[in-house]
């Protein structure tokens, strides 16, 4: 288990972290949600031992040589080296094998092409993120900490990265902590969510539970839905391709059943949860 307990950090600019506690278990994916400047990166740096907290402790129960692999803020790569040479440098400094076979294996694991020989400064952000993850995974860490891994990625890149993260958690039993200010991406892949605001942990819980407790709006896409009777009681807002309704999560099943009874063919129903809701309404 990776446990950061009652962590606080103050800089001259103010209090960045205030009595924050997080806990990561192998094989599970955790999300840390927060606006820019909420204290996410500082928390990650403390968990990884890059900076010291003013108060609180970090304890890691890990049987492997490297307990935590991480990318914080951006993947730090040598821009003048190619992907394999970057891996070789970081493997070499830990005394790991640098042979071609191992390097190829690491590149393939994160879905990077093995035939690119040009410097990584030419790589797209998605490829840099993948190489950063490959480096973080060197020496087989028990936990992986990824700070804003979806930044700069297109939707295909995001989907592909989520797939990789899930594979690492489920197949390799790595405990993963992700941060983002993008709600949708985190709710798609995390078992558990932490919400941080102005350095304080303002909300936490299992993702499905948080959604159930906080969700108040749904986007429903369906043919002829604008005229449907079932949604009229839920303040429908008609959009180009969907209708947004305001209703508690406990009632959505009933609404959908009524729509189907009216003969409406539903193609999608997406909960719309905002970060603000999670920040302003902590779970009871």
């Amino acid at each position: 288990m990776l446990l950061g307990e009652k962590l606080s950090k103050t800089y001259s600019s103010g209090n960045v972290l205030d009595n924050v506690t997080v806990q990561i278990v192998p094989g599970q994916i955790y999300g840390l949600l927060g606006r820019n400047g909420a204290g996410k990166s500082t928390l990650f740096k403390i968990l990884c031992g890059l900076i010291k907290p003013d108060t609180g402790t970090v304890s890691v129960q890990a049987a492997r040589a490297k307990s935590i692999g991480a990318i914080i803020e951006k993947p730090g790569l040598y821009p003048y080296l190619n992907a394999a040479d970057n891996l070789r440098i970081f493997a070499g400094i830990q005394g790991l094998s640098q042979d071609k076979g191992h390097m190829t294996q690491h590149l393939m694991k994160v879905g990077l092409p093995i035939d690119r020989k040009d410097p990584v400064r030419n790589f797209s952000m998605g490829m840099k993120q993948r190489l950063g993850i490959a480096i973080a995974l060197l020496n087989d860490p028990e936990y992986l900490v990824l700070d804003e891994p979806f930044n700069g990625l297109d939707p295909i890149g995001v989907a592909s990265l989520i797939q990789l993260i899930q594979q690492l958690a489920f197949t390799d039993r790595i405990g993963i902590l992700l941060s983002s200010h993008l709600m949708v991406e985190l709710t798609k892949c995390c078992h558990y969510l932490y919400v941080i605001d102005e350095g304080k942990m303002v909300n936490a819980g299992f993702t499905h539970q948080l959604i159930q407790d906080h969700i108040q709006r749904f986007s429903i896409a369906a043919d002829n839905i604008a005229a449907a009777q079932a949604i009229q009681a839920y303040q429908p807002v008609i959009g180009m391709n969907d209708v947004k309704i305001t209703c508690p999560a406990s009632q959505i099943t009933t609404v959908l059943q009524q729509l189907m009874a009216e003969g409406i063919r539903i193609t999608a129903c997406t909960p719309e949860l905002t970060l603000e809701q999670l920040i302003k309404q902590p779970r009871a």
Partner: protein
Amino acid sequence: MKTLVWAEIVKLMKQSKTYYALGAVFLIECLIFITAYYQGSAILDVLLDSLKQSFYFEGTLLNGNLILYIVLNGLWFNVPLIIMIITSGILTDEYKDGTIQTTLLQAVDKGSFIGAKYVVAIGFTLFVIAFMMVSSGILAYTIFGKGDLVVYLQTLNFFPAADAFQRIGWAFASGAVAMLFYSVVSMTLAVWIKEAAKTWIASALFLIITNLLLKLDLGIAIANHFFFPKLMDTWQAFFYHEIDWGLVWLNNTILLGYGVCLIGLGVWTFRKQDIG
């Protein structure tokens, strides 16, 4: 530590700026050669006109040994500047690219990491001095040939060709100690400042101040011995008729001692510092 040093060497060799630095040193040498070729002869004629009537000098006085002496004089400001830029970059580039975080997120000891950087900075400095000595030596002796060396230090000192060659070799070795001091200073400044441009400015300022204070007399003999700017031109001691070996060893030992203290301070600071 060995693997960290090897990684630093690979990184240094893979960066184009390393070769730009060596190219810059060579270009400066060439410019000094051209200047010496066109102006040296005329200056020597004026200086030695009367002496030539009374003494016999072997070969022409505008020879490889004199050119190497001029190179030595000309390079003690330009070369440390280049060395300081490259050696501080060994650390500041890691901050800029974020690779310092990536490295320290691996199973790597902080002290060994910065220690390896100091080792490579020292190695690179020695390599530059060796490169400078070999390249300027080959060029100087090929173009200007060998001959007696005449140097003006308080008075005119004359050295036979073979003796001059040895003295120049020792001067390069002694100068290398001063260069090591500068490279250690720039690395330590990089530990404190972290940012490349600011570290360059601080390094250049340090170099300028050191050069300005070189001739400052503190008035107390013992203070002069330990005042580091006055230790920088110890290499000149090899161009007096009698070499004061005691002074040469003492000055260089003190300078090396300062270097070791700065390394200790840099490693201590780095270990204490937060990263990021």
